[in-house]
């Protein structure tokens, strides 16, 4: 193919891209985002994961190492189908805190530390420079393929010149669309749309070549499969270490690569797009790798031995005489390379300007935040960054000679950026991660990567001398770059992966565990880790003394006049003020900082606002003071609360005591009125009859009768007084117990005889168990007998059965004797059972009983004195009382 047609096609393609980017940009500026923010564009823009390394290199990889090339796509597939774990949180954090790059994320997470931003930026720039060189190299190689094909009239430029031209062209394009303006969200619609177009081009190109190879050359699917089986691809064996290691590595890289972070997190317009991309992006990867194996197999079969397998995608159609298809394939490869370089350059330039240039400029420019047009400075920093990044890539290409196989460089770059992974994951899932730990982990990983993977990639004798390879640095054998700590026999890639990640994660962990994070770090850590719990971002600003006007001037310099005025007007309106100058409330300052950090990064935005708000910034110490003050207040209120609780408890106890006293007083009153009533009734009849007797003139019979009544009543009085006296003695516990060893049987006998005087006219059937009663008790026999008498007499009095029976049952239970007195009467109604042991409690009228109602009360007191109990036993068919008494009453201090 004539070389100048090739160049013309390239130029035409680039012009189309320019047009697409320009139109998209214009559309976005008019606010008609529409499809520009669709999930389709988002997914397609993610395809910059597939660089020229995929487009050309995968075939070469498959030709050299069989199916191992698939690992590079399996990792991202796993990460995306598992988006709910990690990517969702990453995107949410990126959107909520307006993260501009992976360096910005890490710097913001660890207390807006610019040191971390610098470390990550430098690491990532060093790691991705070879990768950019790789893209230049692939474009140069593909040019070379066509040039060698047909030398005609126009002399193709040499490889060096091509590389220069490609680099310059890419830099121009990137600067034009990547740094046109400083967007608040740092989103580049023009570029993203162009990238999406390029994604389609490379997919179509690779599928076209694949389809041609399968159906055009091999002759169908069946034949292709047969050829794959027959192919003598190099003796590839599935090495477990490399297989799993590379899947892990590619999974790490898809998260940490700056260009992937740029399109995945920074350019993300809607979190919902991630859900779509979770399957659409793996689908894209699958389609991209679908025909890699057939192309490799057929290429090895058809093309002469010794041809570069990295270029099979181009050389196979050319060898088959398909010039047009080769052209398409060339454009596909060109797209892969350019899209990657453009986005990578933007991402790196953003980091360089936000973390290297701006802090330096802020420090050394005398005017600081009040200086001249900051927008210009930021944009210029980015442009210089883009040129610098591409320049570095070119330099690497120039000095490395572009000889190494594509895949090797790609993996080294992957491993370099993967060093960010532990800090990134730890930072967003573990609140305990600290800045010191992050620095330690990053530096450790970076140094080991450099020593075991990056520097050796230049070959023995280039950077590291041959002796270092064979004998280790400083002659220490355990420091050999490919056998660190004596681990011989590992694949160099897996060796580097294992040691760098393991020591990186260890240093990060130990550093975090052993140090104490600063307050800002802790606030940021909590905000990032708990990003789904709503915005708990720290308030960093107090009411500032900064004039809103100064803030407006500064914001204009970063955001642009219109955007800044709109922001301030909206804020003023929200505060209920007209005009453009809101009060500098903490809320407003926080919102302003978030907005500014979208343009210049969190650390820089914080530093700039601090310059203006000046000493009014809440310092960390103030913050801590406020915190401890409020902690004191909380403690004080907790104390008050506990005191109040105590008071409530005391009041409750007092109320209870008062209630008891009241009850006692009522009881006492009731007792007194009962007593007077009981005393009054006999007294009345005594007085009446004695008056009648004193008047005289009565016949002797009547005198005898009246005298008998008076005598009876006096006896009753005496008995009542005796009972009262007895009760009071018992209640006071001053009773003298006369302990003797007595047989229970005798006591019951005595009681039955004594009780017979009560209603002697009734004949009772007594049911006893003489054997069981034969128990000797050490107790006050008289008192116990008194209780028995009382119970038996009660039964005689109240049992209303026609054939009254009384059953006396005796049992021994654990050192106590239980005596039950059960009659066959009606028993005692349930509601009265609680009352019968109270003083003067009589259930029926006194006319049947004649007692004062003190009997059971006395019984209860006696039993208490004897160390036993008396209780009513319900459900026995009649009135039933149970007396429980210890067999041996231990002599107390009675």
């Amino acid at each position, binding site marked *: 193919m004539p070389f100048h047609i090739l160049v013309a096609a390239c130029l035409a393609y680039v012009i189309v891209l320019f047009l697409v980017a320009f139109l998209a940009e214009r559309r976005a500026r008019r606010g008609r985002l529409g499809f520009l923010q669709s999930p389709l564009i988002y997914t397609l823009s993610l395809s910059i994961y597939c660089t020229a390394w995929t487009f050309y290199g995968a075939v070469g990889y498959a030709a050299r190492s069989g199916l191992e090339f698939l690992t590079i796509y399996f990792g991202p597939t796993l990460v995306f189908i598992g988006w709910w774990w990690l990517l969702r949180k990453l995107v949410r954090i990126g959107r909520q805190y307006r993260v501009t790059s992976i360096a910005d994320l890490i710097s913001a997470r660890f207390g807006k530390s610019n040191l971390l931003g610098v470390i990550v930026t430098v690491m990532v720039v060093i790691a991705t420079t070879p990768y950019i060189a790789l893209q230049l190299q692939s474009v140069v190689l593909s040019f070379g393929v066509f040039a060698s094909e047909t030398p005609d009239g126009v002399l193709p430029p040499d490889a060096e010149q091509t590389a220069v031209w490609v680099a310059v062209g890419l830099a121009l394009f990137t600067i034009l669309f990547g740094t046109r303006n400083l967007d608040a969200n740092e989103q580049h619609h023009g570029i993203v749309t162009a990238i999406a177009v390029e994604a389609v081009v490379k997919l179509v190109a690779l599928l076209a070549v694949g389809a041609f190879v399968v159906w055009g050359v091999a002759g169908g699917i069946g034949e292709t499969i047969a050829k794959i*089986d027959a192919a003598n691809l190099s003796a590839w064996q599935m090495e477990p270490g490399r297989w799993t290691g590379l899947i892990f590595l590619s999974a790490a890289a898809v998260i940490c690569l700056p260009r992937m972070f740029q399109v995945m997190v920074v350019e993300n317009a809607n979190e919902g797009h991630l859900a779509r991309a979770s399957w659409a992006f793996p689908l894209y990867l699958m389609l991209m790798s679908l025909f890699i194996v057939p192309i490799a197999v057929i290429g090895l079969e058809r093309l002469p031995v010794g041809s570069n397998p990295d270029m099979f995608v181009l050389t196979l159609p050319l060898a088959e005489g398909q010039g047009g298809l080769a052209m398409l394939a060339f454009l596909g490869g060109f797209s892969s390379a350019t899209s990657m370089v453009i986005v990578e350059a933007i991402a790196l330039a953003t980091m360089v300007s936000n973390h290297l240039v701006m802090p330096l400029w802020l420090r050394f420019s005398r005017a600081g935040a009040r200086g001249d047009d900051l927008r210009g400075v930021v944009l210029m920093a980015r442009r210089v960054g883009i040129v610098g990044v591409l320049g570095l890539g070119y330099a690497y290409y120039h000095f490395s000679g572009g000889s190494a196989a594509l895949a090797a460089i790609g993996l080294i770059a992957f491993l370099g950026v993967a060093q960010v992974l532990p800090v990134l994951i730890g930072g967003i899932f573990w609140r305990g991660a600290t800045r010191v730990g992050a620095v330690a982990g990053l530096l450790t990983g970076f140094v080991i990567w450099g020593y075991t993977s990056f520097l050796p990639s230049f070959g023995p004798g280039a950077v590291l001398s041959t002796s270092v390879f064979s004998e280790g640095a400083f002659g220490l054998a355990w420091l050999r770059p490919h056998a660190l700590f004596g681990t011989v026999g590992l694949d160099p890639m897996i060796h580097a992966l294992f040691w760098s990640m393991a020591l990186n994660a260890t240093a990060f962990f130990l550093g975090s565990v052993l140090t104490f994070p600063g307050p800002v770090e802790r606030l940021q850590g909590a905000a990032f880790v708990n990003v*789904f719990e709503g915005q708990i971002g720290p308030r960093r600003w107090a009411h500032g003394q900064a004039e809103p006007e100064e803030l407006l001037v500064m914001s204009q310099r970063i955001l642009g006049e219109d955007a800044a005025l709109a922001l301030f007007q909206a804020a003023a309106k929200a505060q209920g003020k007209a005009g453009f100058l809101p009060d500098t409330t903490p809320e407003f300052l926080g919102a302003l900082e978030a907005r500014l950090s979208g343009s210049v990064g969190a650390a820089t935005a914080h530093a700039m606002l601090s310059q203006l708000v000046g000493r009014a910034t809440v310092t960390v110490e103030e913050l801590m003071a406020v915190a401890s003050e409020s902690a004191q207040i909380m403690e004080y209120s907790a104390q008050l609360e506990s005191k109040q609780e105590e008071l409530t408890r005391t009041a409750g106890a007092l109320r209870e005591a008062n209630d008891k006293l009241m009850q006692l007083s009522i009881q006492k009153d009731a007792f007194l009125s009962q007593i007077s009533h009981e005393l009054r009734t006999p007294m009345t009849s005594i007085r009446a009859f004695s008056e009648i007797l004193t008047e005289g003139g009565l016949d002797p019979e009547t005198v005898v009768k009246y005298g008998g009544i008076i005598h009876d009543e006096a006896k009753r009085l005496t008995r009542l007084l005796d009972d009262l006296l007895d009760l009071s003695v018992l209640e006071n516990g001053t009773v003298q117990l006369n302990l003797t060893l007595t047989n229970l049987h005798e006591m019951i006998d005595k009681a039955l005889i004594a009780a017979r005087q009560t209603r002697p006219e009734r004949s009772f059937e007594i049911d006893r168990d003489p054997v069981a009663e034969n128990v000797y008790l050490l107790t006050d026999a008289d008192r116990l007998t008194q209780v028995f008498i009382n119970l038996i007499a009660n039964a005689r009095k109240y049992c209303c059965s026609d054939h009254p029976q009384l059953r006396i049952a005796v049992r021994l239970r654990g050192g106590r004797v239980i005596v039950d007195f059960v009659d066959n009467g009606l028993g005692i109604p349930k509601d009265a059972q609680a009352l019968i042991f109270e003083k003067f409690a009589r259930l029926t009228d006194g006319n049947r009983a004649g007692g004062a109602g003190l009997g059971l009360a006395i019984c209860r007191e006696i039993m208490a004195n004897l160390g036993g109990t008396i209780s009513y036993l319900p459900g026995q068919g009649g009135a039933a009382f149970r007396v429980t008494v210890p067999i041996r009453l231990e002599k107390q201090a009675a």
Partner: protein
Amino acid sequence: MRRLKRPMFLARAPYRRRRLRDAARLLPVFGAALLILPLLWADEGAERRLSSSDVIYFFALWCLLIVVAALFAPGLRSGEAAGDETD
């Protein structure tokens, strides 16, 4: 920091959403296991391993993972809109 009190039991729809999330979390784990599985296949004395059956296995598995992820995605997204976060 005090967390919002969450209900202990859920209605049917949120319950299903949570289980869908569990499934979505496990999907990459299963995927990884199945991708590593061929390592255990004994290659009987074969010097080279690139055979068409391997290729077909990997691409079939890949398609399966994509389809399952595609089936999960709408449910997961609607759950997010409903706003009941679990973590």
